[in-house]
Structure formats: structure tokens, C-alpha cells
């Protein structure tokens, strides 16, 4: 069976094609993606992001089909992101999926974006039953599978970790290319001084807004780009990463201990940060657990993850009626009944 997946819940639009053969073989056939980049210091607005996705969805679809060497006749199911995400971009991509479904006569499957990340990560890494740390611009969750659902054990109670990093990158005026978190990661490598920052862990939950406002006031008090500043921009990036990643690793470890699990999987855009992966790996080693992680091709939003999760559901009989193909900005990971595990 061959699935095409459409993702556009935030500032990336991706189209992925995935094949599951009858003998159990899984093949990645194509996974092109395009990112809407804004000028330094600026975030992305829903309206402009939707326009970006509208402009790229057809070229990307053609590109994916060409790369996979397929025609529309080869596609068995069309999968698209139902949510969570930004309303405008989500519906733009859903309209494209619906149109192609009618045009090609192929059924639709609506997919939860977070479940897409998890299933993509499991497929690529071979992790069987991991505790999942899902970290992106919009989400920070510690997840484990139990009784047919991906249950949220811990989460950020205010802003997502990716949002915290992105906003701080904007405060420092760092470029948004390839993405703000990458800029912070590069600068952090050159930082030497650890600045004392708020550290807020409540059980398996974390909070980042206090850190962000503290960082803001540090920048306000001393311009880190001036030669006589007590700390450099590199030091600030370093301290921010060391602190927020320590919090994330800590709540992941709390979930591992509580559940008695021995596998950790990191997914989501922040999950390709090598410092975070390194820290998580060290935690895993110290407790005899095993870390699974992927690179930016798969952990940053992409179409393939939607194809993968949609195809798993479809093989277990899931089809979304055209009338039910609406999108939703809020869609919790644990709302999805997982029938394929």
C-alpha cells in the first residue's frame, strides 16, 4: 500500500510518500519540504504562512510523485494533518488533500500531528515502546503508550520549549534561517559562562515563561553585543540551552522511572538539537536505558510522518469521510484511539 501525506500545521509544508509492502517492508519514497522563512526578529503569521503553503503545495506534490517515480494511480490513500496547529495553514493543506482525493478517487485519512511525529520516530529508529519526548515550537510533552492511547505524562504548563528558544532568538535578532533554534545551538557551542536561571520542574511538568522573561531582562540590562557586557550572546544561548534541556531530560527521566521503561525517543523540531540528544543519551546511559533519535529530515515537520501514521490507521480500517475532514487547532495526543498497536 502506498500513502501520500500532507503536512502544513506550522511554517513548513511537506509532502511525503510511504510504501508498506505485504511482506512487512516499509519504504520511504519521497519527502520534500519547504519552509516559510521570515526576516530576523519576526515570527510567522497565520495568513502569510497559509499563502506560502498555497503557493508550494502543488509543486511539492509533483516533486514528491516524480521523486517516487509514481503517478496518482499508484496512490492508495491520502493522509493530511487535522491538527493541532495554526488554523489557516492547516485548512489550506486540507483543501489540497480533499481536492486531490476527489480528483484521484482516493480515500482520505485525517491524522493527529503529534501522533505523526511519534509513529515516524518509531518507524525510523525501530524503538518499540519508548517514553517519547515531543519537543517543537508548539508542543512540549512527555508521552507513553498505555491502553491504546498515547498518554501525556508531563508537559510544559505555559509555553513550548521551541517557542521559548524561538522568541529568545528573536530578542537577540538572530536569523530565522534555517531555523531559530539552530542559530541558538551554534552560538551555545561558543558560550562558556553558565548564568543562573530559574529552574521550574513540577512533577513531570515544566514551565518556561519565567526563564524567558528572565532572559529578556538580562538582555535589557546589558546589551550582550557590547564589548564590556558581563555576558555575551553566546553565554546567554549556552545558559538557556543547558537549563531548559536539563529540565526536559529530568522530566523524561521521571517518566522513565515511574513507568519502568527502558527506551527513550525524541521527536519534534527541537529534537534534532545535538546538545539535547547528547544530554538525553547521557541520562539514558546512567540508568541503563537506550536513546533513539532522528535527524532533521524526520524530526522536523514533514509529510512522511503524516503518511506513516495515516497508513497505519488506514490498514486498520480507518477512512475519514469527506464531511469529517475539517481541521482543529486544538487536538490532544491522547484523544486518538490507537488501533494499530
Amino acid at each position, binding site marked *: 500500500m502506498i500513502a501520500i501525506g500532507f503536512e502544513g500545521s506550522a511554517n513548513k509544508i511537506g509532502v511525503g510518500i510511504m510504501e508498506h509492502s505485504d511482506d512487512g517492508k516499509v519504504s520511504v519514497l519521497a519527502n520534500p519540504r519547504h519552509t516559510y522563512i521570515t526576516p530576523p526578529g519576526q515570527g510567522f503569521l497565520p495568513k502569510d504562512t497559509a499563502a506560502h503553503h498555497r503557493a508550494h503545495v502543488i509543486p511539492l506534490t509533483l516533486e514528491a510523485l516524480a521523486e517516487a517515480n509514481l503517478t496518482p494511480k499508484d496512490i492508495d490513500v491520502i493522509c493530511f494533518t487535522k491538527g*493541532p496547529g495554526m488554523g489557516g495553514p492547516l485548512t489550506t493543506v486540507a483543501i489540497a488533500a480533499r481536492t486531490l482525493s476527489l480528483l484521484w478517487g482516493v480515500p482520505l485519512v485525517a491524522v493527529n500531528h503529534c501522533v505523526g511525529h511519534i509513529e515516524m520516530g518509531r518507524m525510523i529508529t525501530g524503538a518499540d515502546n519508548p517514553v517519547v519526548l515531543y519537543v517543537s515550537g508548539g508542543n512540549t510533552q512527555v508521552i507513553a503508550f498505555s491502553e491504546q492511547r498515547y498518554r501525556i505524562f508531563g508537559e510544559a504548563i505555559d509555553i513550548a520549549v521551541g517557542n521559548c528558544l524561538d522568541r529568545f532568538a528573536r530578542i537577540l535578532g538572530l536569523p530565522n534561517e534555517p531555523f531559530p533554534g539552530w542559530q541558538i545551538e551554534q552560538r551555545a557551542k561558543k558560550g562558556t559562562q553558565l548564568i543562573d536561571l530559574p529552574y521550574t520542574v513540577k512533577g513531570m511538568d515544566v514551565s518556561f515563561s519565567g526563564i524567558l522573561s528572565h532572559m529578556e531582562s538580562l538582555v535589557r540590562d546589558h546589551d550582550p553585543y557590547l564589548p564590556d557586557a558581563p555576558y555575551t550572546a553566546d553565554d546567554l544561548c549556552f545558559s538557556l540551552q543547558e537549563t531548559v534541556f536539563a529540565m526536559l531530560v529530568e522530566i523524561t527521566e521521571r517518566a522513565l522511572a515511574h513507568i519502568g521503561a527502558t527506551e527513550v525517543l525524541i521527536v519534534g523540531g527541537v529534537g534534532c538539537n545535538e546538545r539535547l540528544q547528547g544530554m538525553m543519551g547521557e541520562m539514558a546511559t*546512567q540508568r541503563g536505558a537506550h536513546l533513539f533519535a532522528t535527524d532533521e529530515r524526520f524530526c522536523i515537520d514533514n509529510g512522511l510522518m503524516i503518511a506513516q501514521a495515516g497508513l497505519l490507521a488506514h490498514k486498520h480500517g480507518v477512512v475519514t469521510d469527506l464531511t469529517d475532514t475539517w481541521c482543529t487547532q486544538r487536538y490532544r495526543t491522547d484523544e486518538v484511539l490507537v488501533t494499530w498497536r
Partner: protein
Amino acid sequence: MPDTQPPVATLIKQGAEARVYTIPFAGRPAIVKERFRKAYRHPTLDEKLTSRRVVQEARCLHRIRRAGVDTPTVYLVDLKASTIYMEFIDGISVRDHILATSPLNHQHERELATKIAKSLGVMHDMDIVHGDLTTSNMMMRAGDNPSLVLIDFGLSFVSTLVEDKAVDLYVLERALSSTHPDTDSFFQAILNAYAKNSKGGKPVLKKLEDVRRRGRKRTAFG
């Protein structure tokens, strides 16, 4: 007789942040909880968190035990080694107990909920917030009519704020619903008993409504 043999420590558990060993202490069965150095953490941050938590845990264990809540007796605190020696609790965690006996029958559920609520009520009335209420951090002593033991006070702190106490209960609610999916009535029973058994319970439960509402609004985005 002088004790010539060095005490032998046996690892029984690696918890959320510490390793727990059984070790004889002055002839009594004891454990030593060691907050070992976390390789993933920057050394400065690691030292700060570890020393703060060792002190906090020892202090809170001691204080709430004196108030009549069952917790392990603290024998010795070694700040340099980041270890706490305490009474060994012969029993099992509430998590393992629920997993082994689910579904809980109604009577048993009410009894267990009342024990938990009484301990939490006394603790909150003393303005101590646990900070990590899960079923792994509650134990039941072996034997008939087992006493409920609160453990793991590493994230605890002192606060008079109703908000902090409500968040404490919310953390427990989330831990219950994710670990033991069909236990809504169990948590409700805890809340009912908490209202009856704690002096400051009513406003905390009212605040819990707000905290939950915020939680529901926070449904995943992008």
C-alpha cells in the same frame, strides 16, 4: 561488639533522580538514597539542584513525620556525599499495588483514597507542597490495614499559597490518569476525603478547578 565489617549496600531501585540502596544502619534495616552526579547536567547546575534537594527532602521528611504523617524516619544526612540514610519501608509502592489489584473494589478504593487524602491534608495544612505526587512516591507498609507512607520529597517546598497546593493535587490527578487510566472515581474519592480531612481544603479544591481549566485550554498547538 565493634562493627568491623563495612556495611554492604545493595541497589534496590534507580528512581527518578536517585539510586536507592539497602544498607544496615546501627542494626536497623535502612536505605541510603544517593543523588549521584548527573553526567548530562552542567556541574554548577547539578550541584545547585542536588544540594538543594537533599536538604529539602531531609527537612520535609522530618517535619511532616513529626506532625504525624507516616514517612521514613531520617537517620543521617551526608551533604558532601549527597546521601540520606533513612528507615527501610517494608512494603510496595501504591503504583504496584494498584496495578496488581485493579480494578480496585469500591470499599478498598475508598479506604486507600482516605489514607492518601489524610496524609496530603496534614502536609498541606503545614504549608508543605510535595512537588512530585505520583503513585511511585507513595508506599504501603506490608501487613493488615497497611499504613500509607509518603516518600521522595526532593521537589518539595514550603508555601502558604492555595495555588501551589492545588497544583500539587493537579500533578497527582495527571499522574493517576496517565498511569492508571480508569481511576477517575479514585481521584474523586481522594478529593472528597481531602475536603473532609484538611483544614484548608475547601479553597484548595476551588483553586484546583482553575488549574484544571488552564490545563484544558493548553491543549496542544502545532
